[in-house]
Structure formats: structure tokens, C-alpha cells
């Protein structure tokens, strides 16, 4: 069965520091991969997606993610974190057909001044 693991439940970084959120997936073939962000009590906003091609993908708000097939990973990065980045981040996977998104448990990001 497909699954997504986000090993870090909560991460705290200083404003201006770099960020990396980890995501590992379990799936037999290359899935479609996504990162979403959720502010408290809100819906999910799509940050970026990977379908195929270049393994380094750029998203909104200065985020990027790298797909590494050998490690079954799709880690999210940002070179310099802003206080407004504090939120819950979800990694998700979907098969190439069907559209059923499978989410990880999420990583809560706190940003300290």
C-alpha cells in the first residue's frame, strides 16, 4: 500500500535560516508528488508538484523540492525562512491515475525571531 512519511512532527527555525522538511514515500512506481501548506483552521494551499522531468521543482513563496528516486524522498527546502512561513506542511502522493491523494502526518513549522 502507498504511504507517506514525514519524520519530523515539529520543527523550529530562526527567521532567516534555511529550512528542509523531509518526506519519504512508499510506492512501486514513480508517483505524482506534492507539498501543501495549511495555516491554522484553513484549507490547504499547493506549494509545488512533481510529475516528471527535472527532479528539482520550484514552487510558490520561494520553496523548492527535490525528488530523489533512489531514496524515495521528496524533501522541501527554502533558503531563508520568513515569520509568515509558520504553518503546517503536508507532503502528499497520488498515483498517475485516479487522483486519490495520500497525505503524510504533517510537519508543524515554528519560526522564532
Amino acid at each position: 500500500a502507498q504511504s507517506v512519511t514525514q519524520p519530523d512532527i515539529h520543527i523550529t527555525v530562526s527567521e532567516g535560516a534555511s529550512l528542509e522538511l523531509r518526506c519519504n514515500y512508499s510506492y512501486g512506481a514513480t508517483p505524482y508528488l506534492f507539498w501543501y501548506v495549511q495555516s491554522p483552521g484553513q484549507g490547504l494551499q499547493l506549494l509545488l508538484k512533481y510529475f516528471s522531468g527535472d527532479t528539482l521543482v520550484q514552487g510558490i513563496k520561494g520553496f523548492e523540492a527535490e525528488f530523489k528516486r533512489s531514496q524515495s524522498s521528496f524533501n522541501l527546502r527554502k533558503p531563508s525562512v520568513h515569520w509568515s512561513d509558520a504553518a503546517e506542511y503536508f507532503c502528499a502522493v497520488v498515483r498517475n491515475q485516479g487522483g486519490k491523494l495520500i497525505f503524510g502526518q504533517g510537519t508543524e513549522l515554528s519560526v522564532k525571531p
Partner: protein
Amino acid sequence: DAGVTQSPTHLIKTRGQQVTLRCSPKSGHDTVSWYQQALGQGPQFIFQYYEEEERQRGNFPDRFSGHQFPNYSSELNVNALLLGDSALYLCASSWGRGRNEQYFGPGTRLTVT
């Protein structure tokens, strides 16, 4: 361009009652998926509607049912509410039966007392 909209924003129901949640997809989208997000968890897939039919279903009981209308909007119905049904219900829309990225609405917060 309006994004995905959901109504109502909040809802309080009593155990055993029935509830209907509504979703209007993003303009140009024809597929609607519903997710349940319990507190502190990632969203869980309930079902997906395309061409007015349920195309995929997650591991949810028959108390959860839905409908898609010719204008692509959708309803989620939950019968015989349980305390455990308290959650944020998220609607996501996409184009082409899930082969493309899904955009989420702000959600409906359901509280069952």
C-alpha cells in the same frame, strides 16, 4: 477567478443527526474530491466524483455519501453522526479526473456533540 468554495464554514450537530456539506469547484474543474481531516492529522480521502458518479472511495462507511451536480458542484452527506465524525471536511477540485493537481477549499468545521 473564484477558487474552491465550501459552505457552511462551521457546523454543530448532535449525535444521530444528518448533515450536508457543499462545495463549488474552481472554474474549469470537473472533478471533486472530499477529505476528512481530524485534529492533528493529515487529510484522509473520502471519495471522488467525476461526471456525476462516484469514481473512487476511501475507507469510510456507507454513512458517508455524496453527489455531484451537472454544474460540477458537489455535496457530502453524513448520516447517523458519531462523535468521531467531528473534523475539518475539505473539498478539492481538479481537472480531468485527478490526473492534475488538486486545489482545496477552506473547509467546513463539523462538531458533533
